């Protein structure tokens, strides 16, 4: 399954609307102007996800994981490499980050940031599909990318696809890159893409 250029453009546009909302609440919370950009969206079978993400993330990662359920169900993750995660926390809170493993406050800030982004992204999809999605409490994990993606793969039944949203945080003259991974069933993804196409034709 591959996105056409038109589908990708429409998805990026939709996500940017949702991320605009997330950026506004982050700006309000931190007192700094936060910009969120989506330069790129790709789709991969879950089995090939590790390979494609390892091309862009090499180190241990910090991930915020939320399970969503309802008519559309799946897993949503925000993945940041650990230096990016520390930098993001420093930029947002204006104080030097300690190593994430001992800095509970930093982990909490990242959980909140992930929560805001995942809510914005999945809220956008929920509105588009006119369905109500409910979320689990977000969990932050510090692990290797492989371990996180493996746990995702193990929990899946049937053929699943992952929508990977490349996201860039821009604030205080710095940029931190992160990846939103949304794992969906083939049927859910197909439904979502059709809804995106309809939205594109309407607008």
């Amino acid at each position, binding site marked *: 399954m591959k996105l056409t250029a038109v589908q990708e453009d429409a998805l990026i546009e939709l996500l940017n609307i949702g991320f605009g909302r997330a950026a506004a609440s982050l700006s*309000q*919370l931190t007192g700094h102007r936060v910009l969120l950009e989506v330069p790129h969206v790709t789709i991969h079978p879950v089995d090939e996800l590790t390979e494609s993400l390892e091309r862009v993330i090499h180190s241990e990662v910090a991930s915020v994981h939320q399970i969503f359920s*309802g008519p559309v169900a799946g897993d949503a993750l925000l993945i940041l490499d650990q230096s990016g995660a520390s930098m993001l926390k420093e930029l947002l809170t204006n104080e*030097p980050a300690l190593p994430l493993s001992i800095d509970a406050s930093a982990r909490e800030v990242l959980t909140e940031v992930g929560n805001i982004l995942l809510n914005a992204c999945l809220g956008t999809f929920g509105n588009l599909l006119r369905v109500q999605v409910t979320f689990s*409490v977000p969990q932050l994990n510090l692990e290797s990318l492989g371990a996180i993606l493996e746990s995702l793969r193990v929990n899946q039944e049937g053929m699943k696809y992952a929508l990977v949203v490349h996201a860039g945080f821009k604030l205080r003259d710095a940029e931190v890159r992160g990846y939103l991974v949304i794992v969906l069933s083939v049927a859910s993804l197909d439904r979502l893409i059709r809804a995106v196409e309809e939205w594109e034709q309407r607008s």
Partner: protein
Amino acid sequence: MTVERQSDELLATGLLRWFEELSDRGIFTTDRSLVVRTWNPWLAAQTGITATDAVGTPLFELYPSLVERGLETYYRNALAGEVHVLSERLHKFLLPIGRHLQTMGISEMAQSARIAPLSVDSGIVGTITVIEDVTERVVSERELRSQIAASERARSEAEEASKLKDEFLATLSHEIRTPLNAVLGWATMLRTQPKMKSRDHGLEVIERNAASQLRLVEDLLDMARVMSGKLKLDLRVIGFEDIVQAAVDVVKDRDRDRVPGGPLDCERRSRSAAAGGLEPDVERNQIHRAGGKGARPADRGCD
């Protein structure tokens, strides 16, 4: 509703009540109209608002500041299915609860919170809020941060001190080398021209420069004694006039060197040093020291 289902729901209510009673966190629930439905003992103890007063009151009447701080949206979103995490760093607290730790400048309890929808099969029936007191954690993180900053400061001070020591060593080497030039120059001339007329003068220059270097080393040892607090003052009567005269001579000498010469003058004096004519520099250094000015060459550009 089946008897089984009714029994399940009663069990769930009992379970929530049990957790609420035992929890070391604040837990309250609201219905879909955001009227408080449960208020656990932790909250009653910390806020001073009893469950009897809280239950049945709209949340935003109980805490109007939630609306002023824009947190109403979080509850509206929870009713639409969203979960929210509120970190202490970005919100400080959810409910204002006094917690006085004056030594740390803390007057409010630091909190992290989670606001989530409460859902059953038929849909979302209300919200649940869980509040954690993280004041102690914030205090210990603050202490850790200031310890790290202090050790960082100490490290950069040590680096600066080491840099200054390197610079001092470089200057010192330069100073120690200066008299050696004259000694070597004259020694070579005396060896290659044993019958030269100014032999006595040459020996005098060698002697004077050796003495100058000895004085430098003594000055250095004096400094080490100052650093270790072992300096002894050598008190004796001296002729003040001689010192003033020596200092005046130094300035006169330096002005004479500088006015017409500049860099070209350095060159001239370098040539003269090679020919064994270094005495003016050496002498000036000696006079400087006699006048208590320390080991400062008159002109650093010439060696």
